[in-house]
């Protein structure tokens, strides 16, 4: 298929960016979206031009490195996939495709389509862990049975890949789904109980500090989340936060 690409180009964090137009021909419908961009970049290099910078790594939808806002949707038009799993069969011959970076105050652009998601890491530093040292002397893994439904819920929350689609798609640039996933995972598990209150307070505090917006329950994040993380976890985090703010001594 033949396509017209409109791509955001920006030299670095300080420069202003703009949309540029690139025609591209003979793309197979079986290729992935990023393989289509590989072809574009190969063409640009062969013409002696600078290729488009974009983040990507595993290309299996699990590392969370790839991003891209495609035709106004985080990770593009398909559901339940990251950009690397999006295939060109979702588009038609002759289409014009708009490709932008994930936009948020807390995700500054580094170059072209590459953004800095360090704010996500800093939220995790604030409380995304259970304080247990590596000793080899922790109790036996089966000493504490965990009801299967709880373990399954924890797993559902833990599948978050930290890509930032929830933030990019939210009109408030809210990171609530991302933070709620981690808070919920530990709240379902007995191992997470000891630090349960401090964790939610600290992580939410850091989230606010980073400049993410608040949640107004539009649910766009759940729709665009490549892993289908449920909005219910945000409700759960709100309850966790409310409870913790009443009883915590912080």
């Amino acid at each position, binding site marked *: 298929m033949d396509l017209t690409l409109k791509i955001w180009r920006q030299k*670095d964090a300080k420069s202003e960016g703009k949309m540029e137009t690139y025609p591209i021909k003979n793309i197979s419908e079986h290729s992935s979206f990023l393989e289509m961009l590989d072809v574009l970049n190969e063409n640009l290099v062969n013409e002696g031009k600078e290729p488009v910078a974009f983040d990507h790594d595993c290309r299996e939808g699990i*590392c969370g490195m790839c991003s891209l806002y495609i035709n106004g949707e985080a990770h593009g038009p398909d559901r339940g996939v990251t950009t690397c799993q999006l295939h060109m069969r979702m588009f038609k011959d002759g289409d014009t495709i708009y490709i932008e970076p994930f936009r948020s105050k807390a995700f500054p652009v580094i170059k072209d389509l590459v953004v800095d998601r360090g704010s996500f890491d800093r939220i995790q530093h604030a409380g995304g862990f*259970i304080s247990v040292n590596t000793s*080899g002397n922790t109790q036996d893994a089966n000493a504490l049975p965990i009801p299967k439904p709880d373990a399954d819920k924890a*797993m559902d929350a833990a599948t978050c890949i930290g890509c930032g689609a929830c933030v990019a798609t939210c009109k408030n640039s809210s990171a609530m789904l991302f933070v709620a996933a981690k808070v919920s995972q530990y709240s379902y598990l007995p191992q997470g109980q000891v630090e349960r209150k401090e964790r939610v307070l600290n992580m939410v505090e850091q989230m606010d500090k980073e400049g993410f917006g608040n949640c107004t329950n539009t649910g766009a994040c759940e729709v665009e989340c490549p892993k289908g993380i449920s909005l219910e976890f945000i409700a759960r985090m709100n309850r966790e936060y409310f409870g913790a703010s009443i009883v915590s001594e912080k």
Partner: protein
Amino acid sequence: MSKLDAKIPEGPLKDKWTNYKNHIDLVNPANKRNIDIIVVGTGLAGGSAAASLAEMGYNVKAFCYQDSPRRAHSIAAQGGINAAKNYQNDGDSTYRLFYDTVKGGDYRAREANVYRLAEVSANIIDQCVAQGVPFAREYGGLLDNRSFGGVLVSRTFYAKGQTGQQLLLGAYSAMNRQIGKGKIKMYNRHEMLDLVLVDGKARGIIARNLVTGEVERHSAHAVVIASGGYGNVFFLSTNAMGSNVSAAWKVHKKGAFFANPCYTQIHPTCIPRSGEYQSKLTLMSESLRNDGRIWVPKKMEDVKAIREKKLKPTQIKEEDRDYYLERRYPAYGNLVPRDVASRAAKERCDAGYGVNATGEAVYLDFSTAIQRYGREKANMLGLENPTAEKITQLGEEVIEAKYGNLFQMYEKIVDENPYKTPMMIYPAVHYTMGGIWVDYNLMTTIPGCYAAGEANFSDHGANRLGASALMQGLADGYFVLPYTIGDYLSNEIRTGKIPTNLPEFEAAEKEVTERLEKLINNKGTKSVDYFHKKLGKIMWDYVGMARNEAGLKKAMDEIAQIREEFWKDVFVPGEMNELNPELEKAGRVADFLELGELFAVDALHRNESCGGHFREESVEMDGEQEGEAKRDDVNFKYVAAWEYTGNPREAVLHKEELTFNDIELKQRSYK
């Protein structure tokens, strides 16, 4: 006399690690605060090492080329992690895990290391559960297990098809706790470009900040390389796009021996390639072989009809299907080790029975399992006379619960529904058992330089069993390195901070900068990918699943030629002092072009078939094992460790003889 001393502790196999731990030197907590350690790579090995070392009190600097340590490629591991817990009461034990691993590796691994791995495996599960890793559980709340290839017990723990993700996020969370405390200083989007030696010891690295392009000096009292494997030398592999050999290769060029580079795992169950534009291959977890049956049609006319899309695989009658693994290996069936399964698929496809347009695909079929689970579930629900549709529906639900994300991934890529029609799969490069040579302490031949996880060669011999990579990565990082590195660092407590203005740092930085400048200023006519693809094709054609003398010699010559052409004609756009992905790729491909030749040299010298290394010249000619790989213990029962001398082809071979006191060397039979 070889320069190699594996430093294996004395004593009976089962007591070695305990005795070792009882007698090593320790560093007191106050002194740990004055010691710096660099960890390169933040996957399971690097991430767990960084977290554990920081918890102990060392100052850790961790480096990864991704934008966050959570994205290291361990995250993509699907199926599970082995541990000798014997929760299923099916006869598992430390010895049995040790035995299976040595046998699965075709008797080319070091006994003492493998036994230690099996010994600490149970601790890993305890540790991960304590960290909040949500492993799959049974209804009683206890941990669930599944089976993997090459073994007769169920010892694999898993978290859906995302076990690597959950384990890595566990290690990442442990890192986060230390980053928050300031005990780990994290360098995201940084790539190590050289190792710095001072007085023969590893004292730091040169790294490039990939955002600003700045070349930086970092010093430490020890350096841990946990940068993963080098499967991307084949261009197409299941590795991440950025996975590379550079850190390991730089260390090799600075004096660390590189062991068994030709031991590569070609994984049997990957999605077949589809076109020229293809950038990588996608793995379908080995866990699928628990329930999937592998087959091709028996009749050539059926193969033709399928390729012409006149017949669907579901229309082929049961008796016209060749379940070739069950036929050839009745004892292990679809759960033979990966090397055996891959070669069997290649054998059928080479004979013309491949089921897609390229002739390089076989079926992985779940219909039997769907029916079996469906009936089981119907019984559990107390349904009397359930309809065929109901059974299928229930069975598909069970399969979805077990492998849902894998099935979804397959459907997104191939655009076919694997619940209704069998998957098509074909082998692809997945893992490299070879790597930097290390002793029992995981130290390379450079004092103070360690290698952990896939980056070292130590535990898997010539073939790795499924679900053992995660086990090894975490064992090295959580439970082995924290002890062994202390033994070395106990001699460094009076050293003090290592200054980065030493001439050795200056020289290394200059060399790195000049190489980057050379790439940028080359202004040739061909892209980096052009050379990488060319290299990959040669590797796959001549150094892939089957290798022979003529092909390997041809590969060596052609790789050397491509390397020469690369340095003459590569074009790298952009500048050095900015985010420049093409420049990053160029550096990595330049290193692959050197490693690839050593890889072929090693494959040529090893004139035997063992594990993933199959030499067409070394095959059983008769008897029950006719056509199977033939190992040569008389001449090749050693680790091949190569010393760099300026040109990959002229690398000097050092042999570490392998001794087996606790295992009898046998032909590996899975029949």
